[in-house]
């Protein structure tokens, strides 16, 4: 099976099966544009926006999902769910926030829809069902609402959303 070399931002080289990395539309397009689909020794494909650790994780995800069917077309107005993340992906994404966000960035840069969806859903689940104080702690955000009553005003604006 033909393989391709990917070069991370730090210069590390990863050799991967072509069919696995073609889940990345970005890499697939590069391969097609440069005529690198045929057998033979080619120069590594540089990925300056992805470091080695993240690239390794991305390759791990793509390897596990190699045989997945193409993602279905999602209509803009269809309701989005976050409770359908596969168990393997849930375990795969049990990482620190920095790594999670780097994976999200890498999935966006490499245009891997499946990985982008699950990382976004994972972050959304970190917000869902949390109070503002819990969200502060989760993301290490400092409350910057200043001025008398400003925070209370924002709370009141969003009170409708809390009603059942």
């Amino acid at each position, binding site marked *: 099976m033909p393989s391709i070399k990917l070069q991370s931002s730090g210069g590390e080289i990863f050799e991967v099966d072509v069919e696995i990395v073609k889940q990345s539309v970005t890499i697939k397009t590069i391969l097609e544009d440069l005529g690198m689909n045929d057998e033979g020794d080619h120069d590594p494909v540089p990925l300056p926006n992805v470091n080695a650790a993240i690239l390794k994780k991305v390759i791990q995800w793509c390897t596990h999902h190699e045989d997945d069917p193409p993602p279905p077309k999602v209509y803009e107005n269809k309701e989005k769910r976050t409770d359908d993340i596969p168990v393997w992906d849930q375990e795969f994404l049990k990482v620190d926030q920095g790594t999670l966000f780097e994976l999200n960035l890498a999935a966006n840069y490499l245009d891997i829809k499946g990985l982008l969806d699950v990382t976004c859903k994972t972050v959304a689940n970190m917000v*869902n069902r949390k109070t503002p104080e819990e969200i502060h702690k989760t993301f290490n955000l400092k409350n910057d609402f200043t001025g008398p009553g400003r925070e209370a005003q924002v709370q009141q604006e969003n009170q409708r959303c809390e009603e059942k």
Partner: protein
Amino acid sequence: MVAAAREEEEEAARESAACPAAGPALWRLPEVLLLLMCSYLDMRALGRLAQVYRWLWHFTNCDLLRRQIAWASLNSGFTRLGTNLMTSVPVKVSQTWIVGRCREGILLKWRCSQMPWMQLEDDALYISQANFILAYQFRPDGASLNRRLPLCAGHLAYCQCRRRWEDWPCIQTEDQIWSVAIRPLLSSFVTGTACCGHFSPLKIWDLNSGQLMTHLDSDFPPRAGVLDVMYESPFALLSCGYDTYVRYWDCRTSVRKCVMEWEEPHNSTLYCLQTDGNHLLATGSSFYSVVRLWDRHQRACPHAFPLTSTRLGSPVYCLHLTTKHLYAALSYNLHVLDIQNP
């Protein structure tokens, strides 16, 4: 104090222009990814996120983010067929439509029992009173009226209307006409009749020739008259009447059977209906003068607002909706349900 508040607003406006450069890892994500993540959040989660950080408050209130929520909401100003501009405010108000909270008031009263018709245009209300059409200007809050506007009355208005219709054909329905609606393409119109001895009270006519084009369904029982009918699109209609059902018709699929129907739970005649063009239906009946709000995703009616304490009170003859108010005309008064300030 005013200067301090203004300075704070100006600073907030400057901050809202860009995501914070330093700080937690969340800020390293570009806005397009933050938008994608937030698109998975419901209104409650977005509301809580907005309370966490000032920049997030601005971010979660952007129209692009609220669009998908507005699509799924009730009466958010977003229709299936239009490209309505919407802001975060109607989306938040639409949450109140969902929970069914409102403040009720009476806008107008009159002495003699009427069967009023009304129409809203911009900030003006037009309402029929016997042989008069009265016009009022709304106050900015939409829940009270300002002043009466000058308008032609009685015979003069009738003559003006008749002059426009002179060249149009007359049709013979052989039945009492209770409701009429013109197709948005202006090529045909539909009549709702009393269903006395006829197999369908809903007929579609060619507007130019006056010829009968088709009738909708043939299983209406006798006397199942249609009291209100409206086009939602060139092909979709809504009807309601004596048989206590609201029906949604799509002429592209079938004229023999409606696509969807909702049954009034108290077996009460439905006199009028309105829609927000998306998921919300509103109907008026005579049983306690109830205004019902329906979510088209559901069969059952989630909210009902009785406007009188009399079981067999006045029917609700006419309804109108905006994103913030519902106006219901009964025989003696005009009610307003204020959703924005419940």
